[in-house]
């Protein structure tokens, strides 16, 4: 899959060029170039503070950047146009470390909220879609539950269903298993893995190296706000080129 994505002349779904972002005088992204083809699964790894989450958050406009360009599906990201941003965000779903389910709504209504408001779906249609999506993440029986009645792993799977309800072309996963108890990580990763095999374009910041190695078509190693090394997982994990990546990988295996 990765080879096809890289060799075929397919227009990239996410195209980032010369992206720079600073908080005050502290530059956290120092010129990022990255193209992601449709169906690609890109894992972003690196030390904390390397800018990987910030990069992800730039892609759906949660963070503004100062310089460079970012297009999704050929459309440039315009942070000063709320209408254009809403268009874009319908194409880009995001899942967070802390789940961020809406605690005052049932699981079903969490999933239905955005489609009914943004896509103007009828209630019956949205409900059928929500039920199908919850079934897909293995939570068909939780439609009427409140989020705080669920385990962390279940909440994160609801969050995935909620993001999928908008039928995004790209899904951003920001350390989605980092807040989970170890025994709950597997159930979430299995859902993500299935999405990957079904052809969803995924960009994920992750600390689960075994998972990144298994599922991703390309791995991006970020260091000090730059893409330090990039390549297929076999290369990145099996044959790291730079001392920084070697050190990072060995620090994880300890």
């Amino acid at each position, binding site marked *: 899959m990765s080879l096809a994505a890289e060799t075929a002349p397919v227009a990239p779904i996410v195209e980032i060029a010369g992206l720079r972002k600073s908080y005050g005088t502290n530059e956290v992204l120092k010129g990022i170039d990255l193209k992601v083809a449709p169906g690609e699964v890109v894992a972003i790894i690196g030390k904390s503070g390397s800018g990987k989450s910030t990069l992800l958050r730039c892609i*759906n*406009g*949660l963070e503004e950047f100062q310089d460079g360009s970012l297009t999704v599906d050929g459309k440039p990201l315009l942070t000063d146009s*709320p209408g254009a941003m*809403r*268009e874009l*965000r*319908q194409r*880009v*779903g*995001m899942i*967070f470390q*802390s*789940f*961020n*389910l*809406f*605690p*005052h709504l049932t699981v079903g209504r969490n999933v239905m*909220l*955005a489609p009914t*408001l*943004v896509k103007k779906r009828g209630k019956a249609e949205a409900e059928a879609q929500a039920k199908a999506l919850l079934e897909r993440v293995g939570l068909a029986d939780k439609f009427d539950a409140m989020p*705080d009645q669920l385990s962390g792993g279940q909440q994160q799977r609801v*969050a995935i269903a*909620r*993001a999928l309800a*908008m039928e995004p072309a790209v899904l951003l996963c920001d350390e989605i298993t980092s807040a989970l108890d170890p025994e709950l990580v597997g159930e979430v990763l299995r859902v993500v893995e299935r999405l990957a095999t079904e052809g969803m374009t995924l960009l994920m910041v992750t600390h689960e190296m075994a998972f990144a190695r298994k599922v991703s078509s390309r791995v991006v190693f970020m260091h000090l706000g730059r893409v330090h090394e990039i390549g297929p997982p076999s290369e990145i994990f099996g044959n790291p080129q730079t001392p920084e990546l070697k050190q990072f990988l060995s620090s994880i295996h300890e």
Partner: protein
Amino acid sequence: MVQFSNWDILRNLIFAAEWTIVLSLIAFVGGGLVGGCLLVARLWRGGWVNHVFNGYVQLFQGTPLLMQLFLSYFGLRLLGVEVSVWVSASLALTLYTSAFLAEIWRGCVAAIPKGQWEASTSLALSFGEQLRHVILPQALRIAIPPTVGFLVQVIKGTALASVIGFVELTRAGNMIANVTYKPFTVFAFVGLMYFVICYPISLYARYLERKTHVARR
């Protein structure tokens, strides 16, 4: 000399208490609307609106309500606007209430985790949809106890409207004390009536607080 029974005193005070309640309601509804608009403007735009919001809140929180009443009564007259005590008292109390409610509610919205804004943003909800469906329903739950608690402050605050000649409970008490020569009895009744109005509201606030705590676990 005319003799006044306790019932005469009480009956007149009850009549005046209605105006205390009406003025409180005006202050609360008006203040709620103005305060709500201020808060939404601040959440929507930020930037310079933040400064205006903070300045407004500080101005009304940092000056005595008594001065605000004086200024709204005499100040408007100085500007050549002839207003009744009704308008003056309503205006001053509305502005005063709006500043406090806006600040109370701002705190409640700020208590909602940032992730709720981010999740709803990434789901392509507009600002209005975020407020209506995600943020306000959660903020409302924590806002009810302090809001109801502040209502009690407003009710007692209406007593100050008596200084510009607005006849409510306190002013009526003053007038009755002057004709009956029984200030102790009269003001004891006045105090009792404030208590009768405010105590159930305080109880209700406490009940709501318990209830929302249980709901939030």
